[in-house]
Structures are given as structure tokens and as C-alpha cells.
């Protein structure tokens, strides 16, 4: 069979297609991991003992042996206004990629396989701003038209697959539970969203002084070095669990109408499941594993303790 394949000529349509789509100059596709830099798009490979998976990610920051990355998906048809499409002429990569604000975290440097593209400094800064909930004008034309996850069942499926894949990369980063902390306290008292400063969040926490509840701040965007070392439970973040839930929690707190048991680890409430993926350096990271009721097909609608909740899932 092999010799038949090797001897047969290419069909004419394929020869024409190859000529019509010449290989793109994909920039510097080196595989020297010491050359990994912020703004690079690299392929990262899992190393968690299971069959390996590879995913492309944008390098946001480097820190010792670890790299902070945002997952870059090739399935740009899903891009909504809350995602950024990276066209080929911006990255030098032969295919378009999409950055979803909620899907980022840390991996080991050694998981990097090879570079597939580079994002220039200006666009990288704008992307970081976007991850931090800004709306930089440079990215206006790079946002998608597709549905957000609160509007479309299959988009939710897509996000779930992406998160699951990314968790495999993150788990591979060796973020095992830190024994010195024992079983982390997961109860959530405060979810900082919608622009509360940390101080305001603390004031709010004080107003709900409960000895059995651990102070918790939900942060948007990438974790910051200043978070490390604090007894801080970080819900990572509202943009992953969805603004619908984050804002509901905030609303419930402000109106003193709800206990926030809905965010307890492993619990299921309003079909939201939150489970820890890692516990490292005093910071607990969580990812939503699944959520949403498929019966409300068309509208971003949910109820939490009788409060109607609606809205885009991402900041």
C-alpha cells in the first residue's frame, strides 16, 4: 500500500490547491525553550501521566520555573464579543487563534514544546488590559460576533471542553495541594466583582463577620504576584464561573438575602459545580466544571434565592 501511495501522482485539484495556498512565513518557529518570552504563542504539552494533550497558549508572564499563559483556541468560529481573535497577520501563525479571557493559569516552563507565533507588545498590552476587564480600542476589530455562553448551549459545551483541556495542562504544572494548609477552607464570604476595591471588599466582609467563613476575594484577570503569601482564597474568577453567578452573589450579599453556600467547593447549586484544581502558595484556584440549566434555551436567565440574574458571562 505504501509503495502505491508513493508512486501515485497528486490529483490535479490538490496541486492547484497547494499552489493557491502557499505556506505562510510563520515567523520564528523555534523550539528553544530558553527563548520563550512574554507575548509568544507556544504549544504546551500536558505531563500528568495520562495520554498527553497539546494546546496552544499565549505567554502572559514568566515567573521562575512557571509560565502564566492564556489558552489560545483555533476554533475561532465560536468567538463572541468577549473573546479576542488573533488573525494570522498579527501573530505569524498560519491559523487564526482565539483568546478567551477566563481561561488562563500557570504551567511549567518545561511543558513548552515549540513556538507557533508572536504577538507584538502593543497588542499584548491591550490583551492584558482586556483580561483585566478593560475595553482597549486596539482590539475593537478583533472581537467576535458569536454568542456568549449564556446564550447558546453548544457554546457552553465548547467552553467546558476548553476548560477541561486547560485544567489538564494546569494540573500538569504540579499544583498539588499544599499539605501545610491542610484541606483548604472553601467557604466563601465575599466575592469581589464589579469593581469593588479590596478595601471595600474587606469592609463588606467585616459586615458579614462569620467565624466559620473564610475571607474570600474573587479577582478578575490573571493572578498578581501580590496575591501570593496571603491567606487569600481566590475564586479564579468571576469570568470563569460567570458574571451571572458572581453578580448574583454580590447582590445577595448587598441585599443580605442569601447565604453564599452556593460557592462551596464541590457543591451543586443552580447546577453550578465548582471544584478546586490546585492549591499553591496560599492561593486556591477554582474552575467551574459545569453549569446552567438547558431548559432556558434562549435567554441568559437564572434565579438565585429568588433573585433574577442575567447577563454576559464574562466581564
Amino acid at each position, binding site marked *: 500500500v505504501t509503495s502505491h501511495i508513493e508512486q501515485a501522482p497528486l490529483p490535479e485539484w490538490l496541486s492547484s*490547491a497547494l499552489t493557491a495556498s502557499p505556506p505562510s512565513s510563520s515567523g520564528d518557529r523555534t523550539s528553544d525553550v530558553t527563548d520563550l518570552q512574554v507575548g509568544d504563542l507556544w504549544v504546551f504539552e500536558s505531563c500528568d501521566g495520562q495520554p498527553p494533550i497539546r494546546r496552544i497558549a499565549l505567554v502572559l508572564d514568566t515567573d521562575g520555573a512557571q509560565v502564566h499563559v492564556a489558552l489560545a483556541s483555533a476554533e475561532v468560529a465560536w468567538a463572541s*464579543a468577549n473573546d479576542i481573535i488573533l488573525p494570522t497577520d498579527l501573530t505569524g501563525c498560519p491559523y487564526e487563534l482565539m483568546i478567551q479571557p477566563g481561561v488562563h493559569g500557570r504551567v511549567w516552563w518545561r511543558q513548552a514544546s515549540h513556538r507557533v507565533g508572536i504577538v507584538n507588545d502593543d497588542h499584548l498590552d491591550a490583551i492584558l488590559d482586556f483580561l483585566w476587564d478593560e475595553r482597549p480600542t486596539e482590539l475593537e476589530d478583533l472581537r467576535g460576533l458569536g454568542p456568549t455562553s449564556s446564550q447558546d448551549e453548544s457554546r457552553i459545551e465548547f467552553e467546558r471542553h476548553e476548560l477541561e483541556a486547560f485544567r489538564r495542562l494546569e494540573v500538569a504544572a504540579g499544583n498539588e495541594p499544599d499539605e501545610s494548609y491542610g484541606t483548604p477552607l472553601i467557604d466563601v464570604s465575599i466575592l469581589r466583582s464589579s469593581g469593588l476595591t479590596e478595601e471595600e471588599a474587606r469592609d463588606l466582609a467585616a459586615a458579614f463577620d462569620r467565624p466559620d467563613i473564610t475571607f474570600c476575594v474573587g479577582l478578575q484577570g490573571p493572578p498578581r504576584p501580590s496575591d501570593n503569601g496571603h491567606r487569600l482564597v481566590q475564586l479564579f474568577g468571576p469570568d470563569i464561573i460567570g458574571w451571572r453567578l458572581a453578580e448574583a452573589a454580590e447582590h445577595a450579599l448587598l441585599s443580605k438575602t442569601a447565604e453564599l453556600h452556593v460557592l462551596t467547593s464541590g457543591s451543586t447549586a443552580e447546577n453550578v459545580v465548582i471544584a478546586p484544581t490546585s492549591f499553591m502558595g496560599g492561593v486556591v484556584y477554582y474552575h467551574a466544571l459545569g453549569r446552567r440549566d438547558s431548559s432556558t434555551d434562549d435567554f441568559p436567565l437564572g434565579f438565585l434565592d429568588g433573585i433574577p440574574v*442575567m447577563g454576559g458571562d464574562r466581564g
Partner: protein
Amino acid sequence: MTLEQLRDEYRTERIGLRWLAEVRSVARSVTSSYSPEIYADGLSWQSALEDLVQEVVTERLLREGQAAYLIDVAATYDDFRRLLARQIRLTLARQRRRTIVDQLLSRSRRLLGSDPFILVEAPTAAWTLPGTQRELRAPTPRELRQACDAVRVFPRVIGRGYERASTVYRTKDLRALLEVVVRDLPTPVRLKDLDAIFCGLLTPLLPSDLDPGAPPPGGAPAFLSPEDDYRVESTVNELLSTLSDDQSALLRAKLNGVSDSDIAANLGLSRPTAAKRKTEVMRVLSERMSDLPQDLAARVVAELGVRLSAGTTS
């Protein structure tokens, strides 16, 4: 065949006979669960398979660079075949969406030919509304996105999974949708613009594409008794008369899935201020709907979305 052989071929000639054999093999396997009636113009897959293979290779793998993506992320031969199967499913879904969008465009063209729309030549055929001044240019991506958001809430006919091209919108809803788009865009609306908006509104993959064996989604809508219907209608009217213009605009944006950040940017507010105003709107909704069971409350919110988007608030 091994992944290394496929990589070697990619390095030397990108797509050669080994790749082609893989595409054919995976396409044969994938299409076995897709109805040729829907996805192959009614032909048998035996006749249509080669067209699909050419489409996948020419458009997805070469023109869109997905062959490079496969090489970059496939860790094993099985991985390669799985990713290739995904490309083939996406191609099938796209073809089907194309058919659906083409039908919507054809229906739209007919509807745009009558009142209240006015045809302008600018320089291609485009439509506007009487008494409106429009800039003679193409809409920006941001403007198209906003138009998309404004009509996302319009109700769709749930497909039964076996139509080649679902209706998507009832005629009265499609007409109302076109009115919103033509009213909201600051430029005359071309078919090309509608094409982009419809593609943005329709998910590229239907659930049945993801899992062809799965039963179709949806089902018969829940029945509303005349009493329930009246409660929904009166609650909607009450809410619409209660909300200020700013609150209505904010609620409309939220129901269309616009993020808080974008609402803040559009209203020229800080995000905390926008969030505070939104909380106030939610409180109003909460109070007015506190007596309603959840299914009726959901109906109220759905109806609010359509009425606010269409501008029929009275």
C-alpha cells in the same frame, strides 16, 4: 500509517497522498452518522464524499492553515485522526449554516423590498428607513457587533434536527429583526452586512452536529393558559412603564448578553457605576416578579427582551 509519516509528508510537501488517504478515511467514518439528505444535497455519501474531501483539504487544511494546527497539536496518531474528524464536522456544519443563512438572506431580500424599507444604491444595493440620514460607508466591526447584540434575543424556531435548512425565524420576527438592524446601523444595510450578522447569530455547530446520535434539542414550548398569558403580558407592561429610558437601555443590553464592561463603555460610565445601576434594575425586576413562578418569570424576561429590542415598549 504513523503520525511521524504524516509529519514527514507535511514537512516536505504539506498535503500529499498520505494526508489525502487519511482525510478520505476519516471522512468516510464521520459521514456515516450524517444524513446525506441534509448534508450532501440528497446525494449518497458515495457520490458526495470526494466533494467533501476536496472542501476539507482546500478550505480548512490549506487555506485556513488547519493542517499546520494539526501538526502543532496532535500528540499521537489517534489525536491526529480525532482532530481531523473535528475539521470534517466543522466543514459539514459550516456548509449547513451556509445553506440556512442563504435562505435567510433570500427571505430578507423579499421583505426588504416592501415597506417600511427604502432601497438605496450605495453603490451596491442597500436598505434604510424613511426619514433617516445614513453615512454612505460600510459598517465597522463594532457597529456590526452591536447590531448583532440588538437582535440576538429574537425568538427562533427550534429545529427538529432533520431539516436541511431550518426556518430559524418566523416571518414576522424576521421582519422585526430587519427593522431593528436597519434602524440601529448608522449606515445603509447591505446583504453582505446581514450575512455577517446572521452568521454571528447562528452557532456554527448545532448540537446534532456535535453528537449526531443525540435527540434534537428543544421540544414543544410549554403551554401558557390564557390566565398565565395575561399575567405575563401585564407584568411586562408594568415593568416597561416603570423602567426609565436608561434602565430600559441597560436591561436591553443585559438581555442581549452584552457584558458589564461593554455597557459601562457604551454609557460612558465606570464599571462599578454601571453595575450599581444594573443592580437597581434587577431589584425592580425582582420586586415585580416576586409573585410569579419561575417559568412565567422566564417568559416575562423573554418578552421584555423582544419588546425592548424591537422598541415596542407600549
